[in-house]
């Protein structure tokens, strides 16, 4: 075991044993998975919890008067408590289950956007948003007459507060919707400062936590977030389950997003009335198995602890920045002070797609493209980047393998 491994804040060999997929080979090579920011791999505990739910304890929730339905409802609702405590929400009623972070943002744009915002009000996003936190607001703009404004980022890849100040100057801004961690640059945004900035100017704040929630302990009360969204699948949980946290008084006032069973108080052909939150926002049979899987993922991550996770990630990120900086002709995008284990880069002679294909043949999985952030690519003056991202199970040796792979590509593509 190398010196680097010994300095890991947890027993990484044991962690890696928890993820069955890491034993797989790709093109005859050991899988080096550096694409966790797109979707993370799943530990055995999550897989087992989902299988157990289907094998031993399954029925629809909130409906049946029978044993299996009650048991399943208990397991499903227990995850709501778990998520509430995971985010330190003031109450479990502030947790709405959605399909993913994207759907959670859409829920806010449709329901809150069309009821609390008036034509002429403005929504501010930033230049480094994922399409998920851009397109729903464009649709709101086009259909509801709110203005959509874009705050700049600095060349280092941090939110530019001077630009934010300008966007807010005329007092029309009612919502600030920004990422908590860029999926391209790895930059964190200062959530607490942004929340007080928005609140001082009479606006609410929505934070897209799809990336941040994986790497840091999130305390929505300490941040004073109005809305906070994340997806289960990046947090080592299954796909198909996401979370919207919203302050209780906001949810109380919001109309339904989707309509159907489970979200009503009473229904007649003439009129229906809505259930209280969070049920009001969970129409139809929910993703029961996936929600139970998310609960197992949260247990898994919390058992390791965010202090250890953050330390491991800091170590990997520093190591990766050092390894990549030594490759001539490689350009790392963004140099935010506060950054996490997501690193985008370009190479002077090789296009991102060629990089990804050539790395894949060496068993190394990275992402290449615009990362669902086309406007940010324009801001950075590139059409696409390659991106390496790290998870709990990432080894420093895997980053060394990335460095070696990139050096090989440099040889093939060298000027």
């Amino acid at each position, binding site marked *: 075991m190398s010196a680097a491994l010994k300095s890991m804040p947890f027993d990484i060999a044991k962690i890696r044993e928890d993820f069955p997929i890491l034993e797989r080979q790709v093109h005859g090579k050991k899988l080096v998975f550096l694409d966790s920011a797109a979707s993370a791999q799943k530990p055995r505990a999550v897989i087992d919890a989902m299988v157990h739910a289907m094998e031993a304890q399954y029925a629809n929730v909130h409906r049946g008067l029978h044993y299996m339905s009650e048991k399943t409802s208990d397991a499903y609702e227990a995850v709501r408590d778990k998520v509430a405590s995971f985010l330190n929400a003031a109450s479990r009623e502030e947790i709405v289950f959605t399909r993913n972070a994207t759907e959670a943002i859409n829920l806010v744009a449709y329901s809150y956007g069309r009821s609390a915002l008036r034509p002429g009000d403005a929504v501010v996003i930033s230049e480094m948003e994922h399409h998920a936190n851009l397109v729903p607001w464009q649709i709101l703009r086009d259909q509801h007459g709110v203005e959509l404004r874009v705050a700049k980022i600095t060349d280092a890849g941090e939110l530019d507060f001077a630009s934010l100040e300008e966007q807010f100057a005329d007092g029309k801004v009612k919502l600030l919707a920004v990422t908590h961690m860029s999926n391209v640059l790895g930059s964190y945004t200062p959530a607490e400062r942004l929340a007080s900035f928005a609140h001082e100017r009479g606006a609410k704040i929505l934070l897209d936590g799809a990336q941040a929630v994986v790497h840091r302990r999130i305390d929505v009360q300490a941040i004073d977030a109005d809305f906070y969204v994340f997806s289960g699948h990046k947090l080592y949980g299954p796909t198909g389950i996401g979370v919207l946290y919203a302050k209780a008084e906001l949810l109380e006032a919001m109309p339904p997003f989707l309509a159907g069973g489970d979200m009503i108080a009473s229904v007649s052909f003439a009129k229906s009335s809505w259930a209280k939150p969070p049920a009001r926002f969970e129409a139809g049979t929910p993703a029961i198995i996936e929600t139970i899987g998310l609960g197992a993922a949260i247990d898994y991550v919390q058992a390791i602890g965010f202090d250890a996770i953050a330390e491991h990630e800091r170590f990997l990120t520093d190591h990766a920045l050092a390894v990549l900086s030594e490759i001539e002709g490689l350009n790392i995008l963004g140099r935010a002070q506060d950054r996490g284990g997501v690193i985008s880069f370009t190479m002077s*002679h090789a*296009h991102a*797609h*060629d990089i990804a*294909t*050539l790395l894949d043949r060496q068993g190394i999985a990275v992402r290449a493209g615009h990362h669902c952030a086309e406007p940010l690519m324009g801001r950075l003056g590139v*059409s*696409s980047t390659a991106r390496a991202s790290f998870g709990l199970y990432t080894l420093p040796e895997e980053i060394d393998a990335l460095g070696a792979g990139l050096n*090989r590509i440099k040889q*093939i593509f060298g000027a």
Partner: protein
Amino acid sequence: MTDIAELYQALIMDRSRKPRFAGRLEVFDAEATGDNPMCGDRIHLFLQRDGAKVLHESRGCAIMTASADLMAEAVANKSPKEIQSLHEAFEDMLKTGKPDPALGDLNALSGVSEYRSRIRCATLPWSALAEALKEEQQKNG
């Protein structure tokens, strides 16, 4: 690592680094752009004489740029009908991975058949050319 060499063989590397048919025509009969929304790759084609002379401006990966350049060379002095049959043979070759004598240097791209996500890189220039020829035909017809 032989498989890497198979995909990025010398002709592809050469044509992506030093394309022979890059640039824009000052006078042209038709032009077309092709975009790959997956990766932001973009090609701009300029045509004279129904595609018998083609130049390209490519912003993209080695596969796309080399494919565009080899295409421009292959279609030189060909009729629209001949270009169409080359296009069909090229797409077939990418599906099967089997080189086709009729395709000449274009066979350098046969290795792409094994990389499903990259086939679009190789076909983007051809789709743009087909579109430009179709528009020309409508204009003249």
